[in-house]
């Protein structure tokens, strides 16, 4: 299935991109994160278990067990710092 991935702030800089379209079989947010970590380098570092980051699925905050469907928009970003 096709997923739209978005990256913001420090993660955008670390991954050298602000978005990508990914063909993936990941059934959940957790499985998608594992797939991205397997790329190694900054992906393994920034998305490691101990690191603090957030995932939004279709623009709502989501947890690792959230299921994925084709066309979903998944955003990964650091804790927010606006206001």
């Amino acid at each position: 299935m096709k997923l739209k991935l978005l990256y913001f702030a420090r993660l955008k800089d670390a991954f050298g991109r602000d978005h990508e379209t990914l063909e993936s079989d990941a059934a959940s947010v957790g499985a998608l994160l594992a797939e991205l970590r397997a790329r190694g380098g900054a992906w393994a570092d920034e998305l490691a278990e101990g690191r603090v980051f957030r995932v939004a699925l279709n623009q709502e905050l989501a947890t690792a067990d959230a299921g994925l469907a084709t066309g979903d928009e998944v955003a990964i970003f650091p804790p927010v710092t606006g206001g």
Partner: protein
Amino acid sequence: MDAFTIRVDAAAFDAGQEIARLSADPGVGAVVSFVGVVRRHGDGDNVAALELEHYPGMTEKSLAAIVAEARARWPLSAALIHHRVGRLALGEPIVLVVTASAHRAAAFAACEFLMDFLKTQAPFWKKEIDADGHSRWVEAKSSDEGAAGRWQ
């Protein structure tokens, strides 16, 4: 104009004009506003500007949800959130939150609530730019998580 307004853009705002607009309802007796300003001492000690990034789409949705939650908790006549994005120099306003109610307790509580949630829930990120051009992404503050936690 709608009594409950959310704006996310690079434009400046006129706090006095917005306060006056939210005072127009004859039921309004109290208007509280918050303005956040770029200051010199952030994570760095010589900040010259901020670069504000956000997640278009999710930003507006999360701000709308925060405003809806405030309206469920307090009897508000009107409210405004205007959050700026892009590059903002030292001393420039970043965000304006205005709440209007019959009485001051509701207006104060709702304004502080909106700010606490905006700081922890809305997808904005600040990058500090020093006078010498160095820059860094601002780290989230545990004090902000604590401030948001007291409303739960």
